[in-house]
Structures are given as C-alpha cells and as structure tokens.
C-alpha cells in the first residue's frame, strides 16, 4: 500500500485516496468539431506507461483535493507530487524525455 504525500494534508496511506488515471488529458475545446476518432482518443486512449507515469489522485477521505503525481509504474516509486494545472517538475520531464530518446 502506497504512502502518498497529499500536497495539502501530508503523507497518508493509499486507502485514503482515489486514483484518477492519466494526468494532463485536457478536454477538447469544441468536441463537436472533432472526428469520431479524435473523440475516441480523448475518451479512451491512455498512455499506460511502463516507467514514469503522470497521473492524478484525489484525497477522497481527506481534503478532497485533486493533484498530480509522477510515479514509476514499474517500481511504484513516487517521484513527484504537484498541483492541478501545473506541469511536472523539470527533472521528471527530463526523465520522460530521456526515456523517449533511448
């Protein structure tokens, strides 16, 4: 069971949180202008990265706030926690890019 550092309440066990799946999927501005395939991409297609995964969590049993988290899905290591609306810290972006290059 993970120990998750809620950016507002501090460290709590995973059971207090709900998982919100992949982060940074913005809802399209004008859905009506999208093709079915583009809409399906938004609705269903997910990164599911093996390695550094950017995801969302919500502190359900605590402050009820949503936040982002970078976690290695292979090792379950939590690499960073950052607020909604923020981009992942630079070192995380580098990790992801580094991975892309390799």
């Amino acid at each position, binding site marked *: 069971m993970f120990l998750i550092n809620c950016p507002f309440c501090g460290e709590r066990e995973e059971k207090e949180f709900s998982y919100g799946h992949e982060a940074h999927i913005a809802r399209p501005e004008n859905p009506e202008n999208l093709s079915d395939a583009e*809409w*399906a991409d938004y609705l*269903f297609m997910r990164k599911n990265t093996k390695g550094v995964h950017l995801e969302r969590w919500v502190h359900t049993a605590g402050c009820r706030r949503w936040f982002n988290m970078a976690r290695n899905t292979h090792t379950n290591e939590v690499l960073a926690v950052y607020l909604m609306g923020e981009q992942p810290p630079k070192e995380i972006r580098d990790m992801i890019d580094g991975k892309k290059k390799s």
Partner: protein
Amino acid sequence: MTKYSIFSLLRNAMGYHRDWQQAWRSPDPKPEYDVVIVGGGGHGLATAYYLAKEHGITNVAVLEKGWLGGGNTGRNTTIIRSNYLWDESAHLYEKSLQLYEGLSQDINYNIMLSQRGVLNLAHSLGDVRDTKRRVYANKLNGIDGEYLSPAEIKKLVPIINLDPTIRYPVLGSSFQPRGGTARHDAVAWGLARASDARGVDIIQNCEVTGFDIDKGKITGVQTSRGQIKAKKVGVVVAGHCTVMSDMAGFRMPIESHPLQAMVSDPVKPIIDVVVMSGAVHCYVSQSDKGELVLGAGIDAHNSYSQRGSLHIIEDQIAAVCELFPLFSRMRLMRQWGGIVDTCPDASPIISKTPVDGLYFNCGWGTGGFKATPGSGWVFAHTIARDEPHKLNAAFSLDRFVNGFLIDEHGAAGVAH
C-alpha cells in the same frame, strides 16, 4: 512426439523415466517466419497451435520474453465459465469452453479441466435482477445456466454462510454447471508441446523490443536475440500491450493494473464448486491439491510491478470470512500478483491494427484464462485470413471510435 498415456508412463517407469522427450524444443530463432506471435502466454500459444492445426501455417515462432506461461496465464485463479451477458461475449466464451472440453485429448496433455460448476452470488435486489437477466440471456444463447435460491446454493456449498441477517446476505446465485477450473500451467505447457509438435518454434527469453514497419506494413520484429523477419505479427502480451502499441505507433484504450491472487495451506476437500461474489469482492475454489485459491479485484492504480497492495487482500479476506466463517482459522500460504490489461468496456480486443499485418489480442483484463483456446482460435483465423472471424468481429479496436462497445461491467460483476 511421444504420446502421453498410461502405457507410455508405465513403459518409461521401467527406465526410471530417463527417456522422456522434451515437451517442447528450445530452438534458436530462424531469420524469418510466416507468422511471429509475441507473447508466450496461453493465448499466444493457442494462437500458434490453431494457426498450425486449423490453417496449416507452421512456420511460426512464439517469442516470449521470460518463461512461457509466466504472465497472467501462470498466475490466474483458473476460473472457467461462459455465462456472459451480451451475445458477442457469450458466443466467444462459449466457443472457448467447448474447445476446453476437448482440449486434453486434442493436445494429448491433461489440462485437468474440472467442470465442477461456478456460482456467481447475488447480494442485493439489484444483483438478483442482473443475475437473472444474465441467466435468461445465457439460456437463450444455448448456454447452460440456472438461477439458484439460497436453499439450492446450500446443497452445492454446505459451508457457505446463508444467514439472512449478515451485512450482505446471499440472496441467490447464477450457476453454470459446465464452468469450473483447469490447471493453468498445463494449458500453457500442453499447448506449447502440441504446437511444437506441429513445427512451431517456441523461443523463450526473447523479448520483442521493436517492430519493423515499412510503408505501413509489418516486416519483422526487433528482439533481444536479434532481428526476426515476419510476414505477419500477432501480439498477445496482456499487460504489456500498450508497451507494444507504443512501439508500433498507435494508441490503445488499455490500462495495466495489478491483480492479486492467493492460496491457503492445503486441506482436505471442503468446497466442491467455484464461488464468486462480485458484490463483496472475493472468489474461492479449492485446487486439486487442496489449497483454497482466492482472489478479488484489481488495485486501482496502473502498475507493472506484478505486486499489489495488502489492503486489497485485507478487504478480500474479510469477504471470504463473511461468506465462509469457517475459513477464518485457515491460513494464507502465498500471495502474488499479475499485470492485467483492462479495457474500458471490460471486453477484449482481438483485432487488426493500423499497421498492415500486425494484429493485437489483448484487453482480457481479469478474465481471459477461460478464453484461452477460443481466443487463440479466432486470433489464428484473424491472422491467417487477415480478417476477423465472425466470433471476434465485434471485438475490434474500431469499436472505441464508433461506439459499438460490449460493456460487460454492469451485468458480469467481477469478470473472472
């Protein structure tokens, strides 16, 4: 291939079992195959087997990054049933169950199919309604199934707690008598042996690390053991399918989650059917060796760690103890996890892809062991003919675009 039988066993006993052949060879990869199957789980092996058997395509390699059957095939709770709600699913899983029923003889390897019957319990009025709906649908699809009252359940599972005052009392159940379990490893090994006998190369410790795609058409795969050319490639890697689709350059509607299972210490027979409860989240059967084989639901988060969290098990075991208070004093002997590939509509994808000659079979999530032969059978057809069989036509990747989903969440409870 030496035929397995009581006679060959006796004959070999004379020679201290020194003369048994290898169940399958461990050849080096050839430079080129007609078909490369990526993933040596049950589904990949079944695909290779039926390619050879049904379609005469024998220049086939199964590439497995670890040991064959070491993925979800080797870690599932082995529940087999075909009583799914929607026609598309029911037909596919029923095909699979029928293939299972003849598989031991077909592949000459005893997979220990045990059709002891599967119960899916209902604990609320809503459950009852959904369960009956599924049973009615099953019947009209020609699938065996009944709805049982608590009294009828008691006859099948005398030890279950039917006290109507418990938190979530058992109000009824569906029962599929032909459902049951099979020895998971034997399914993988038997299919490997039978495929090998038909000329399929089974290559373990060979990880696919990339695809060779030329003008939208597949030409081969990159592996940890070098490049292998292939006219067609079928990918059957369960939890790793998006790792593969990333390599091929298209997106999938799949997430990989830990799913845990566990066994108790071995005891004398005490429960004779498979009992599943979606509502209180547990399922139980007893293996031929005597362990209780137990499972529950997935961990919510994505993970490739092949480990899950303790709290999932705590909740699940509480449910087991509620339903079977006498298991409270029994002990867990081992727990483990798999990486399951969940699809938004809880149905699999057996499909052509945007890349010519590249086919994907995935999304079985928590419930694909029961589909192993059927999945291989339709996937072999899809690869051989470059078009789906009518049994898997609905399970295409396109359905996420056009909306023809096959949503098995609502009525199937846990999908094992």
